């Protein structure tokens, strides 16, 4: 943490972690878009739109919850490590 090389390495890893988190969000949003697209197709063709909407109501929140849990963990870890740093510095 003292050497500049170390911090730059940390930064790269941190951005990679951020990227992986955003990948999960992209994945989840892609699934939501996909399901919404299927609903629009089923409405368009009048092909059991009720069932499609019912399934989407269950499926989409599940995916979003999963992504939020991951984000919560990631943010939770980092929020703390900063305050911890301050604490140790303060001590």
């Amino acid at each position: 943490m003292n050497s500049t090389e170390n911090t730059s390495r940390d930064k790269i890893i941190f951005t990679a972690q951020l990227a992986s988190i955003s990948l999960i969000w992209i994945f989840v949003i892609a699934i939501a878009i996909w399901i919404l697209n299927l609903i629009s197709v089923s409405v368009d063709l009048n092909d059991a739109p009720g069932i499609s909407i019912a399934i989407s109501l269950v499926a989409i929140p599940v995916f979003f919850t999963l992504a939020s849990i991951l984000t919560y963990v990631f943010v939770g870890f980092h929020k703390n490590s900063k305050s911890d740093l301050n604490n140790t510095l303060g001590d």
Partner: protein
Amino acid sequence: MTEEKTKTIDIDEALYRPIYETGRGFYLTVGILLMIILFAAFMYVRQVYYGLGVTGMNQPVTWGFYIVNFVFFIGISHAGTLISAILRLSKAEWRRPITRMAEVITAIVLAIGGLHPIIDLGRPDRVLNIFTAGRLQSPLLWDVTSITAYFTASTVYLYLPMIPDIAKLRDRGGKLTRFYDFLSWGWQGTDHQKKVLNRAINILMVMVIPIAVSVHTVISYIFSMTLQPGWHSTIFGPYFVVGAIFSGIAALLIVMIAFRKVFHLENYLKLIHFQYLSTLLLIMSLLWFYFTFSEYLTGIFGAEPHEMDVILYKFTGPYAIFFWSMVVFNFIIPVIVLSFKKFKTIKGILFASITVVIGMWLERLNIVIPSLANPRMELGSGMYFPSLTEWSLFVGAIAVFVLGYVLFSKFFPIISIWEIEEGREESIKEVEKRVKSYLPGPAETSD
């Protein structure tokens, strides 16, 4: 602080060793597995090139090994997350060395099982039609959604409890530090981080159970939503879930016994773990029999002619051998082995688990093929012989599973180190406190 750390590392050195020491056996195993997988891949490419004619499927038996294995592998996947979530949720302390192994089974097997319907497609080049023009009314789409959800959930559920262990590997230095640093998400083991992680795991384990149940229910719906005799049954949902957990526990036991032997984990996986799990296996075996019995009894009692055709075909037709060996493997052998203390040794449990896995595979076979072979119309019954392509893809799928497991164990500890530590440090006190809270306190005297 540092002294304590080195101490604990010394204690659990056996768990780190497989990651840092690579023997010739590892390369040999990986090489053999890769060869099997390559051959399977070749057979698959051949199938894509020539068409599904290279399999043994035909009319009316339009589904064969691929769908059987699909249901089978997804069933095995329930080992994992579901067992580990239930054990975590019920605060069973003996879970600690088991959960990780179970979760890994889930993640790998789900990926394999989820690919099987694609292998089964006549036009895999058009698989994207599902995304552009899918119909959510079709049970196949329910499957796509629920398996994706389960795969995501179980991967997250595998990953989160692994973070502290990854951080340990990162702190050890040596190979792949950057990789572990990336995966450890800045874990420092502070109290706040522990709180966050525990909360996330708690939410996940509650979430994972209904998702897991939904997955196998939905897979049973593929069959029970049709009008075919032998499939169109309301019991299929719970029946499949029970069967899935049943085969999952058996697979978990096999994996545990294999790793105990290869990695010398006798200190972690003790006889008591196997006995507890095998008691669960015994319960599931009885439950499985109960469901099977109800299924066939309602069919036979109602005696609807087409239903009877299928049942008689299963009992006495060309597939009778598979039906009866399923009963022996799934019920008679496990019940005999697991009911008597004399047989309930590691070897006995291994034997029972292997028969259960085979028996559950036979059950999937008995569900898929006899119904299709006996169409309602008067066309005579069909026959199905799997071809070399189907066999090699089956073996290939198993090889992918073993390879995935072996590679996982090369990069990550197969037993959750921090949870073992936590068990040593905290849970003895906590359990004591918990048990005390169950017990009646000193009688409150009136006045």
